[in-house]
């Protein structure tokens, strides 16, 4: 095949790919290389270690089970409702809830259910948010919308013909459920369980803020504590390895089984929906209402406190710097992540066009860091860089850099479909027109613009909400909004936490609005 304009530079994109791979390799170098002789195996029989491992597994399993169990009826209810504005807003809210920085949710949940929370009096004397209950509530809140949206999209994909057939065959409700609804969603259900398990296994901010002491600590938090509380590097490394082995293999297993699609809009909205019986329809409406309440409650809970504190102008002005730091961090990470992902996908696209089997590997290489928890990557790099670099000085750059790196797979997954589309549609044309590489690139970019914007909004949100990487490398001269909110929330300064959360929520809301505007309407 002629190396046409498109393929200028056989090695285009390789530097980016190598950069991503080398960063991981370096982190592993840190994990392996430090004080090898001092690696403390006895640690694995320490009752503390066993207790946190047990707790980590328990909370992740329960979070996954509860999220999916609740998402199922909600998605079903949603699929029986006619398309409407509020339903579309609801689906957007689902996206917002899943990608929204966790600290906002945590502040809302504390305002609702904490000691002085507005709902706490209803829960009796013994109610204590901190510990497993708080962690579960937050995890369900964050993951349920993701599950609802995924399952809903699957249910929407049941073809009209199937429903028609079901009607002709006069299938009972149960039969319809088994033959159509369950059949269309069961593989997604298992995948969701797996994904939510992995997400919650790696959860950091929620456990840090709502864990309430050593009884409810996860591996991820224990790594942070070993490093920052005890400066016990060998222990932090031992924990990081366990975290990597379990979270990494669970992730590989799940992603081997399939891919969850949740952001993509449903293809060809189905017109034909089965009619529900009256009581069933009522139940669906009630459920739908409950979902609205559930998703809005923690956000609405911020409002009274925001009104309380809104007049404090000194406080508002004290937010400006953290806000700028967060936005700056988000911008750098996003630019880095998008350009890395874009370039790193080049070798993959080349391989695809040439029908080479290396495509699979290249794809994997671009996204490999998904299997490496952010905390593990951070600790590895921290240990490696500590003797060589003034981390106090370079810390914030590292926060931006690592956030950029770990979001590469997310950016890639947003860019890839559009890029492949572009290649399949225009590659031959571009070749036969003998376009210069510059002109070709311009056409490609204008084609890719919406996908790039979506990816950027998505990545920015992830990077700005980061707490884990910041906890390792951050510096108090550059406090980010999430870390500030964590400080307020953990010292019960809920008014300040709510105000800061509201500002942050505003920023995220704008991004989501932007993100949703890019993609075609969801049915």
């Amino acid at each position, binding site marked *: 095949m002629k190396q046409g304009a498109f393929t200028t530079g056989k090695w285009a994109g390789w530097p980016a790919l190598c950069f991503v791979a080398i960063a991981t390799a370096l982190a592993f170098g840190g994990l392996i290389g430090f004080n090898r002789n001092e690696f403390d195996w006895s640690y694995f029989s320490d009752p503390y270690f066993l207790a946190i491992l047990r707790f980590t597994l328990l909370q992740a399993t329960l979070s996954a089970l509860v999220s999916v169990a609740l998402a199922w009826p909600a998605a079903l209810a949603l699929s029986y409702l006619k398309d409407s504005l509020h339903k579309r807003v609801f689906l957007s809210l689902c996206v917002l809830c899943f990608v929204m920085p966790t600290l906002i949710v945590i502040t809302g949940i504390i305002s609702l259910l904490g000691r002085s929370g507005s709902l706490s009096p209803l829960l009796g004397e013994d109610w204590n948010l901190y510990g497993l209950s708080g962690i579960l509530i937050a995890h369900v809140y964050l993951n349920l919308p993701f599950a609802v949206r995924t399952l809903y999209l699957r249910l929407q994909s049941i073809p009209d013909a199937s429903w028609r057939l079901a009607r002709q065959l006069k299938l009972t409700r149960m039969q319809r459920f088994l033959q159509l609804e369950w059949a269309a969603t069961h593989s997604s259900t298992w995948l969701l369980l797996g994904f939510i398990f992995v997400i919650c296994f790696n959860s950091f901010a929620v456990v840090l803020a709502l864990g309430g002491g050593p009884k409810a600590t996860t591996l991820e938090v224990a790594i942070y504590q070993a490093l920052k*509380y005890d400066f016990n590097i060998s222990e932090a490394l031992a924990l990081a390895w366990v975290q990597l082995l379990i979270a990494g293999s669970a992730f590989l297993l799940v992603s081997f089984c399939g891919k969850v699609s949740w952001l993509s809009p449903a293809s060809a909205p189905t017109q034909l929906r089965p009619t529900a019986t009256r009581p069933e329809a009522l139940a669906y409406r009630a459920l739908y209402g409950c979902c609205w309440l559930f998703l809005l409650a923690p956000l609405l809970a911020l409002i009274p406190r925001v009104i309380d504190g809104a007049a404090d102008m000194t406080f508002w002005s004290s937010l400006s710097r953290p806000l700028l730091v967060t936005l700056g961090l988000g911008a750098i990470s996003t630019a880095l992540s998008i350009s890395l992902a874009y370039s790193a996908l080049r070798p993959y696209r080349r391989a695809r066009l040439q029908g080479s089997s290396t495509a699979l590997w290249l794809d994997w290489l671009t996204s490999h860091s998904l299997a490496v928890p952010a905390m593990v990557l951070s600790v590895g790099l921290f240990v490696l860089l500590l003797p060589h670099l003034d981390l106090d000085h370079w810390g914030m750059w590292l926060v931006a850099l690592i956030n950029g790196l770990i979001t590469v797979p997310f950016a890639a997954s947003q860019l890839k479909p559009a890029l492949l589309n572009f290649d399949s549609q225009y590659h031959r044309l571009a070749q036969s027109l003998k376009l210069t590489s510059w002109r070709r690139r311009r056409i490609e970019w204008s084609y890719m613009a919406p996908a790039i914007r979506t990816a950027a909004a998505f990545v920015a949100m992830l990077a700005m909400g980061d707490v884990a990487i910041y906890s390792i490398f951050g510096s*108090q001269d550059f406090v980010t909004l999430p870390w500030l909110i964590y400080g307020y929330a953990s010292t019960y300064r809920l008014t300040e936490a709510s105000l800061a959360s509201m500002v942050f929520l505003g920023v995220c809301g704008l991004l989501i609005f932007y993100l949703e505007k890019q993609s075609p309407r969801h049915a």
Partner: protein
Amino acid sequence: MHHLFTRAVSFSRLAHSLIAVSAAAFAASASAAEELTVYTYDSFVSEWGPGPALEKGFEATCQCDVKFVALEDGVSILNRLRIEGKKAKADVVLGLDTGLIEETRKEGLVQPHAVAFDALTPELKWSDKDFVPFDYGYFSFIYDSQKIKQPAQSLQELVDSSASVIYQDPRTSTPGQGMMMWMKSAYGDQAESAWKKLAQHTVTVTKGWWEAYSMFLEGDADYVLSYSTSPAYHQVAEDKTQYKAALFSEGHVMQVEVAAIAANSEKKELANRFLNFLISQEAQEIIPVTNWMLPVRKGVKLPEAFDTLIQPKSIELTPEYIAANRKAWIKEWRGAVSQ
């Protein structure tokens, strides 16, 4: 220590002051004033803590700029020094306590001072060549006497009870560490099962003193680990007498808060002047009514509220003994309470 009670705006002010402090640092580096970097804990430098007044007092005489770097709690200061090693920017570390002296010294993180202790109260019997004390107190559990009519009279009674308790993490905070010594001296080899018993009615273990005390004042627990001097704050600043320290028959662990010159500081002379200032009459009159601890200097006049405080029997643990066992005790604690 750590007596920051005013709750509404403090954290934001703290964040604010940190920003102001770093901005000031920029400004100062432009001018010629020598800068003195002090690592301390958060409530020390908050608006209601001793930090601002001490800073003003010292800067009036030193032609220098004091820059506070605030960490969560006492043990965090040590951890920070360890993590930073030779890159630490501190000239002075302020807010370590007796339980950390030996470890800090052994790791070579501080250097000898040139401060004379003639003016110190003889009760302290202080003669350390590296560390200068600036206040002291006794760890105590504070309760609200309007809620609890018959407070526990011993640590054992508290552990055996079902009263809700909040204390601090010994890995990050000096009160938490004091609690650990207290449990160890009361229970010895039985400490593990005592920790487990206490865990049954522990609301939460917080990272620092501040979080714990805030939660207590919110009404989250019957008892909170703090200091025998804490009730004085409520009397002087808030005119409230219901908060009391429970007097325990086993005795109470004494905490002496200390400051020292960081090992790689090159501003030895300035740092020594700062340490001397810390135990001066001026500073020692500020500290008891801002940090709410007892002064280390003889003849400092205190508000009357201090006369009403409990006078506990002191449990003496040598810094060497604590340093030799601290890690093992922490392991025992976290193993017991994570079950």
